[in-house]
């Protein structure tokens, strides 16, 4: 690995931009996630920024048990995120559908539809746990090849 590649990998680990998708969550995880950006937890000191557009994101944070209605937009938005990208499943819902398991409108868990890299369990997870999950995701992001296309079929 030469110096340029090392600089790219290091920059990537120091500036992960997040995009948050709600696939039918009860909003509990989303509130806990937003509290990571507040002065108490302040993830900006890790270079993390919450981005408005999926085109700018490195880490996709997905909460919710994946309802039938939200599946298609979820996969569309996931494909809009340019590589390299890492998926963090926020809360128990994307991991196991939680209390919504067995519902006719829930088509989860999330790993059935898109590849998940990090699970942050909890209902809702504590902000420290979310930050720990994001730091795990950053480690996975650093291992991705410098320039290589990955495709996922809807």
């Amino acid at each position, binding site marked *: 690995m030469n110096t340029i590649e090392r600089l790219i990998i290091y*920059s990537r680990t120091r500036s992960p931009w997040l995009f948050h998708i709600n696939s039918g969550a009860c909003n509990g995880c989303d509130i806990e996630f937003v509290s990571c950006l507040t002065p108490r937890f302040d993830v900006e000191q890790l*270079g993390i920024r*919450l981005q408005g557009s999926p085109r700018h994101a490195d880490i996709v944070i997905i909460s919710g048990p994946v309802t039938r209605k939200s599946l298609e937009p979820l996969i569309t938005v996931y494909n809009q995120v*340019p590589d390299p990208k890492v998926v963090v499943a926020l809360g128990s819902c994307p991991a196991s559908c939680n209390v919504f398991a067995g519902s006719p409108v829930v088509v989860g868990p999330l790993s059935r539809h898109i590849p998940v890299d990090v699970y942050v369990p909890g209902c809702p997870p504590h902000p420290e746990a979310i930050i720990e999950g994001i730091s795990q995701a950053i480690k996975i992001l650093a291992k991705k090849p410098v320039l290589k296309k990955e495709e996922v079929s809807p």
Partner: protein
Amino acid sequence: MSLGMTFFSIFIFPGLLYALPAGWFMVWLQRKTEARLQKRLGPPFFQPFFDFVKLLYKNSVFQPGLNGILMTFYPILASAALIGALSLLPVFSNRQGFTGDLVLLVALLEIPSISLVLAGFTSQSIFGAIGSIREAVLSITYNFSFLLAIVVLALDAKTLQLSILSESPLTLARGIALIAILLCLPAKLHLNPFSQANAEQEIYTGSLTEYSGIQLALWELAHSLEWVALTGLVASLVLPRTGVWYLDVFLFLITSFILVILLAAISAGTARVKIDQAVRFYVRWGLIAGIAALIVALLSPGIGL
């Protein structure tokens, strides 16, 4: 202006070699000031540099046809125009520049805004289009007072040459004109309370919604250069000339950085207003400041109505 001096001002100071690190430093300073005012720690010192390198080596989404070419062309155009504008700034006290470079400077400072509007429409995203419309409306309204202030500056010093203009004494008309220019800076830099064009809570990222990878990196670059150019413009117009070149440069840098902290404090202390409120603000207060400066300039004894 000699060829060597032109080369120096485009590529070294206040051009590329100074503007790149200064732009990143100003973006960091703005984010850090905002964070400290919100009782956060804020980003590390090299954050804008890391963002830039990361975006440079991230896959960008392939856009077919002319749109793809234009989407790469617009950020390059914006950055190039800003480098040109920076090279015209009268930092040193020795006579450089040419007659009419004030007009060229104003035109070059307007190009990033125009290319941002065009970039939003070219990306064919509905959020990009909304962001572009907002940017266009804002740029038309704040340019009333910005151009009036530039006219007053030229009228007050009776010249269109920046180096002579910056050396003329600070009069009342020029002070009011500088206040009118300062009023325009938050909208030009997309800061709160006039950040409607890139309001991420409403329209994703406005014009830049569809931009990714290297194109977005170039836009970030253009934005940081815009910081250097606009704060540098105000700093070079407001400062007295000492005649010692290193003192001139030192005062120029300090004033630029103080302006960044001031703008960041305004941004942290306010919330985004609606687009019609922003337009009303500029049509009312911007125009009042501009017209007041014009009246004072026309009534001052040297002009002779």
